[in-house]
């Protein structure tokens, strides 16, 4: 006899996501996919790396998200001279009752929502300060490990064109990001709307639509979404297909140096579950996996130099994998 789980109201997750998207859309013009992916990552409890040229609203998006969520928000501007202690905090000497002793001064990482702006401008040492925080959701300073607030959500931005004086994120750091979202240049219509909204005498004021508790509930609910075995196998086939030694695709064997990690599969499935809920469904479909495959896998596929020389991108590799991976129906 299987114990009956407490009933979960999945519609509230859908409503929450829709509220978030609607509220953010008041300030962010267009970029629906960007908003959808950001909400998916937030609901799944994952971190997001936003990549786009300057001026596309990456920072505005994160700041707006902070406004729509009743959660603590902090912004860290990553610069080459930024030190790890500037992020995670440090022990400083203070005066307590006439005694001088070390006190821990928490860094900006201690917030529900952290904006790591231009993360690739910091040195790898400083970038690595985020590793523990993003994966373990704890910070260790000295000998003491401190938990971060929950939910903990890092949104990092990076500029793909100004590479001088930047430090590309190492593979381990990239793998910690749930999604890597490319921020596209707005369409002409969107540009006009941006101009109208931001050049007037007033700008829209966003209201809070959710708090930390609602986000945590949504995260738990998303994990309960069932996924059929053959759909799960499809997700595994997708991830396997990114590896040159397992893929049947010539492009993968030729251009890919290393494929997605198991964390990529976890991301794919979890993001698929959230997307299913956002679509008003209670099960993961092939379409959900296909829809989240690009942001979930693009930063987990590491290409050869030859790919760069031939203008092959990870997105193109993923598209080919999606096109050629069979959605085999259940055989039982």
């Amino acid at each position, binding site marked *: 006899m299987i114990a009956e*789980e407490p009933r979960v109201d999945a519609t509230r997750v859908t409503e929450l996501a829709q509220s978030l998207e609607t509220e953010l859309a008041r300030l962010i013009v267009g970029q629906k996919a960007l908003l959808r992916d950001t909400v998916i990552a937030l609901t799944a409890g994952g971190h997001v790396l936003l990549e786009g040229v300057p001026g596309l609203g990456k920072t505005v998006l994160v700041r707006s998200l902070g406004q729509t969520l009743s959660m603590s928000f902090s912004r860290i501007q990553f610069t080459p001279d930024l030190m790890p202690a500037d992020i995670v905090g440090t022990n400083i000497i203070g005066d307590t009752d006439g005694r001088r002793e070390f006190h821990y001064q928490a860094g900006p990482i201690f917030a529900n929502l952290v904006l790591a702006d231009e993360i690739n401008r910091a040195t790898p040492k400083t970038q690595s300060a985020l590793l523990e925080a993003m994966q373990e959701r704890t910070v260790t300073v000295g000998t003491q490990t401190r938990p971060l607030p929950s939910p903990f959500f890092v949104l990092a931005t990076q500029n793909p064109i100004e590479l001088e004086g930047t430090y590309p994120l190492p593979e381990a750091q990239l793998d910690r990001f749930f999604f890597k979202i490319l921020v596209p240049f707005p369409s002409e219509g969107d540009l006009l709307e941006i101009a109208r909204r931001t050049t007037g005498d007033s700008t829209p004021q966003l209201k809070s639509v959710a708090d930390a508790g609602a986000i945590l509930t949504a995260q738990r609910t998303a994990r309960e979404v069932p996924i059929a075995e*053959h759909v799960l196998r499809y997700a595994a086939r997708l991830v396997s297909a990114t590896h040159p030694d397992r893929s049947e695709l010539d492009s993968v064997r030729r251009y890919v140096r290393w494929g997605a990690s198991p964390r990529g599969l976890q991301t794919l499935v979890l993001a698929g579950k959230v997307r299913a809920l956002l679509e008003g469904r209670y*099960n993961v479909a092939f379409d959900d996996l296909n829809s989240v495959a690009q942001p979930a896998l693009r930063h987990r596929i590491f290409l050869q130099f030859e790919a760069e020389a031939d203008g092959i991108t990870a997105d193109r590799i993923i598209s080919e994998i999606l096109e050629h991976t069979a959605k085999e129906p259940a055989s039982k």
Partner: protein
Amino acid sequence: MSSLEAIVRELRKAARRALGARYAAHALVGAVAWVAAVMILVRLVPFERRAELAVLGIPVALAIAAAAWLIRRPSAALLMAMADIRLGLKERLSTAWERRAESGPLDDAQRHDAVQHAARASLPAAFPVRVNRGEATLVAILAIFALALALLPNPMDQVLAQRQADRVSQARAAKAVADAKKKIADSGKPSPKDAQIQKILQDAQAKIHEADSPRKALESITPAEQQLQKLADPGTPALQSSAQNLANALSGTAAGRSAAQAISTNPAKGAQSVRDLASQLQSLSPKDREELAKALAKASQQAQNSQMRDSLSKASSSLQSGDAASAAQALNDVASQLDSLQEQENTDQAVAAAINGLEAARQGLAAQADRDANGQGGQANAGASPSAGASGNGNGNGTGNGTGNGNGNGTGNGTGTGGTGGTGGTGGTGSNGSGTGSGSGAASTERIYVPGQPVPGQSENDPTPLGPGQDVPLSPYTQVIEAYQQAALDATDQSLIPGSERDLVREYFSQLGEPRAAK
């Protein structure tokens, strides 16, 4: 749960319909492909029951498709997954079915959602009954191809017709042999070698019937004829001659006149009369005895059979010495020899009848074998050598005027036999033998002695005096024919001569031997 099972039932029903249509289409493709394959096959290999073979594939293909349709039962999970994909249900049904027994926080909602969406969808549409365009095109192409092959002339038709003709020919030949058997059995003149003759004919009939072709059947006839010829007694003519001489001698006596008539009628009656005469010797007058003794002495002198000569001589001398008992005993010996002659004549007649039956079979088989040869290899043999001897309607091949003698006009197709006992040219193998082969000049240059009836007192084996213009002695052909035949057959066996030509040689010598055997 029950709703999901109802969905599965509905999907299964639709899937069975769709699968049925698909397998029917497969069966149609298979059947038409089979017919086309048969049509191709019968153009490469002669096959008589082509229609039955072609039709056979249709029920077989249908049966296989039906069996596959019955055996193949897609699982419920597969049906649900297929329906998800085809109806755009976003894996709702397959997830619900897979987790139908689960009770997670969202499982009930998921199942409810799946059932709701399934209710809005047309489930049978997931498995539509439709004709695959590719299969339909394939069926059309194959059908047209098969029809074209069926309508176009088939080169194997000629082969089949030839086979049929071969079978008919062999059946007729076998019947001719069977008729000969029956004739011998019904003749009313039993001979001690009847069983052997019947056995030889039976074997020949079986071989003719079982042979692959008329040519093969022909090969079984000559050995049978040779076996039969061995059964004939070569001493029969000498004994016949002695008996006739005895009859001639007795006809001039008062006591032996009736015996002479009986001997002339047939040897068996003659034997009885001679026995009667032997029993009456005691009652004969001295004059009659002397007259009878002289006649017996004369017959003894003319007898070619040594036993007959001895018995007649003994009877004559005994009568002259007055020993009637010894004379009677000697005459009884003569009677026994006449009985023996009767048996030999019966055997010879049976052998002749058997050989006649075999020859009748040979004629039909040879004609068919020639037609076969022309039909199959006429193009290759056309004009191989000039057919001077026969101008048949068929492709004249083979040698023209061979070793004919006499002045007979050989009748066409291969083994023309001379019109007046001479043998025509072993000439052209016309396809239907309507040609008239003209006997060659061999008749005027080749010396072959044709024996007549030996004159009384002359043996057939005696050397014949030279004729006018003849510078070498001639031999009776009965002395040399067997040697000639053996030499010719040995030569054909050792040479690269086609079987049909070998048969011609055998047939030639068989025809030469026929009058002798019949006699």
